[in-house]
């Protein structure tokens, strides 16, 4: 069984959530003013702020999404780690100190510092909301994915639980409680990822031969390739007829004496074939599921998916390596063969869908190179469009970090520019260490024998489960707190945009500090509610991929305006407004019209999509820069002083 509700895990989970909420109420009394609520009075020590940066930034996408992608595809998930960290270079060397100098509560403050323009406040406020909502979706999806196995509750309950907890955190104490929650989460995430990585290395790698182990998957063969089609009985078992959609599917089904069937993928070598056991999940139109022909469940006459992930062979015929060093781990894996899992979707005449998950023995050298994940496979296709898609994503990751409103507002919580710089350095160091560890965690999960083939987001917690029940409980609770920390920051940024930028700044509604805080709290409840609904709607998408979209919108809408304000003296108010709007609308519109959204959200065909690429950054980021330059030149009024001076 992959998932089993553990009282220990539930107890630790409740302890974490209870402590977090308790901390928020304790700190709530310090935040009666807008300075306290939005910026923690600018009194957060730089070292604490640095770790809080890590807590804010290392979201469900980093922990659950990247580890899951590495566990299922190898090195490609690590490309996200590299891109996410590279973005901090932009934040430190270009944005950090000016941001602290120019702003007070929100991203719009910095952008509007030279102009006092209602238009800039409106554009930047809406952009903050758009980016934050897109970033919220994967966090909520990750929360739901965690709750399901941890507490045995449905996905939507997890989403609602995160939404409700975060609303309490943000409403009670704003930036003060958010900072401390993020500090605790960032510290624990890095420490326990380190412990988990050390245990992966200590365990080493071990070969699992076919048909062995507690969750053995059978391999049948060799059989004659030319006779396979005629065989009515294989391995002493009746072969099921190839009705639609199984005809020419490449899969063979054999009757299972316990009920249902076992499905096998056909692996051909010369004129011989082997049948490798696969797993079939059939989903009816009413949502009910069957596993290999039996209802899903652990009762009589029911079946569950088997956990997967094993090494097929090690170098020099070894069967187990014993403990491995940090570099030796990669050297060994490079020359091994690991069984990854592919999947194929078969649609029945009554619209029931069967997804067959099948074994893909893969050389270690391929796992540790870019280009195995469907998103990145295009770099080996030889097609220019696929390569541009890859460049576009990597550009968005590079430019996106320094444009995320919930990250930028953290610069207001320290006392001066030097503290902003130092806290960014602490943030880069802790985030960098964590990203190095993601490769050990992901590859450790890949070979742990504990993976759920249907849910890549659960790879890291399941790796922990394969090592120790206590570690599973702690890692799951940390992962949940990870979501809490990031979602708190996002909702705080959104509520600030509503109360400070849109109502006070744009509409000119006069609010004193306490009234602003009250409005921000109401906004936090509303944004939290929207996040809950979106988290339920986007349940099946990989969280890291969704975050890639949020980065594209942030990088297109915010970075051009912010950098040009700092470095180009002829930037005008109209140029900034146009750049933010064009960057936001073009990137958001592009994503909504892309092939990925068509297939995964609308349920349409990829060839019906209007946008030529799924990742918009390579077009929309330059477009926002060009818009700013053209509009600024056309509107012409020079600023007397350059902010950069």
């Amino acid at each position, binding site marked *: 069984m992959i998932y089993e509700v553990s009282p220990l895990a539930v107890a630790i989970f409740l302890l974490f959530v209870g402590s977090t909420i308790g901390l928020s109420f304790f700190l709530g009394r310090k935040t009666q003013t807008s300075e306290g609520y939005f910026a923690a009075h600018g009194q957060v020590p730089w070292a604490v702020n640095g770790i809080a940066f890590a807590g804010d930034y290392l979201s469900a996408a980093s922990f659950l999404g990247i580890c899951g992608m590495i566990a299922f595809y190898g090195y490609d998930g690590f490309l996200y780690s590299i891109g996410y960290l590279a973005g901090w270079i932009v934040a430190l060397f270009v944005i950090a100190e000016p941001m602290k100098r120019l702003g007070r509560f929100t991203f719009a403050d910095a952008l509007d510092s030279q102009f006092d323009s209602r238009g800039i406040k409106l554009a930047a406020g809406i952009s903050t909301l758009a980016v934050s909502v897109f970033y919220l979706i994967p966090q909520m999806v990750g929360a739901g994915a965690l709750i399901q196995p941890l507490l045995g509750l449905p996905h939507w309950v997890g989403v609602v639980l995160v939404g409700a907890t975060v609303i309490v955190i943000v409403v009670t104490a704003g930036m003060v409680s958010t900072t401390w929650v993020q500090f605790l989460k960032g510290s624990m995430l890095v420490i326990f990822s380190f412990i988990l990585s050390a245990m992966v290395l200590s365990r080493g790698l071990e070969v699992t031969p076919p048909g062995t182990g507690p969750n053995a998957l059978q391999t049948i063969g060799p059989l004659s390739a030319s006779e396979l089609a005629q065989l009515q009985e294989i391995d002493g078992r009746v072969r099921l007829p190839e009705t639609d959609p199984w005809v020419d599917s490449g899969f063979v089904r054999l009757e299972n004496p316990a009920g249902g069937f076992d499905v096998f993928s056909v692996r051909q070598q010369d004129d011989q074939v082997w049948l490798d056991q696969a797993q079939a999940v059939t989903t009816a139109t009413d949502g009910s599921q069957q596993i290999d022909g039996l209802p899903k469940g652990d009762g009589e006459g029911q079946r569950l998916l088997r956990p997967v992930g094993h090494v097929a062979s090690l170098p020099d015929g070894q069967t187990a390596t014993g403990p491995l060093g940090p570099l030796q781990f990669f050297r060994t894996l490079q020359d091994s063969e690991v069984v990854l899992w592919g999947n194929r979707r078969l649609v029945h005449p009554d619209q029931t869908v069967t997804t067959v998950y099948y074994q893909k023995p893969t050389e270690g050298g391929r796992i540790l190179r870019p280009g195995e994940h469907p998103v990145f496979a295009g*770099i080996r296709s030889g097609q220019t469009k696929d390569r541009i898609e890859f460049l576009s994503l990597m550009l968005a990751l590079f430019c996106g970090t320094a444009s995320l409103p919930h990250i930028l507002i953290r610069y207001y919580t320290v006392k001066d520019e030097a503290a902003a710089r130092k806290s960014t350095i602490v943030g880069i160091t802790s985030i960098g260490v964590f990203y190095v560890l993601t490769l050990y965690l992901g590859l450790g999960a890949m070979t742990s024998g504990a993976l759920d083939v249907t849910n890549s987001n659960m790879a890291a917690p399941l790796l922990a489960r394969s090592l120790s029940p206590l570690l599973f409980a702690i890692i799951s609770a940390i992962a949940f707190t990870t979501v809490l920390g990031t979602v708190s920051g996002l909702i705080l940024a959104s509520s600030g945009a509503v109360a400070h930028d849109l109502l006070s700044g744009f509409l000119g509604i006069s609010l004193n500090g306490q009234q602003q805080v009250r409005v921000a709290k109401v906004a936090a409840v509303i944004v939290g509610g929207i996040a809950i609904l979106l988290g339920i709607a986007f349940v099946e998408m990989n969280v890291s991929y969704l975050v890639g979209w949020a980065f594209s919108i942030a990088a297109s809408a915010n970075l051009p305006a912010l950098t040009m304000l700092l470095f180009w003296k002829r930037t005008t108010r109209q140029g900034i407004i146009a750049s933010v709007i064009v960057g936001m609308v073009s990137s958001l519109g592009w994503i909504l019209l892309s092939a990925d959204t068509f297939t995964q959200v609308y349920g349409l065909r990829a060839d019906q999509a209007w946008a030529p690429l799924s990742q918009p950054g390579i077009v929309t980021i330059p477009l926002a820069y060009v818009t700013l330059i053209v509009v600024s030149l056309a509107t012409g009024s020079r600023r007397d002083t350059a902010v950069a001076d």
Partner: protein
Amino acid sequence: MPTDSDADLTTAATAARKQNMQLGLSLFALYTALYGAFVLTSAFYPDVMEIRPGGGLNLALLWGFGLIVVAILLSFVYGMFSRVAGAKQ
């Protein structure tokens, strides 16, 4: 009323900011070149990333880890050589 001492502090802060900005932009350009080369090589010459230049690890691993380590090192360099932009602003 602003005093001469205030003016000195402002001038010193401006000079410090300018120096920090120049240092930051230089380090940014250096890192961007490393990152850009990594991304372009992965996109247009993915097979090159499989070469094992030394230590038994392929280029994808060495370069990928290198980018993370260099980012941390450059941030320390920036922290050591940047100036405090004046206490009074």
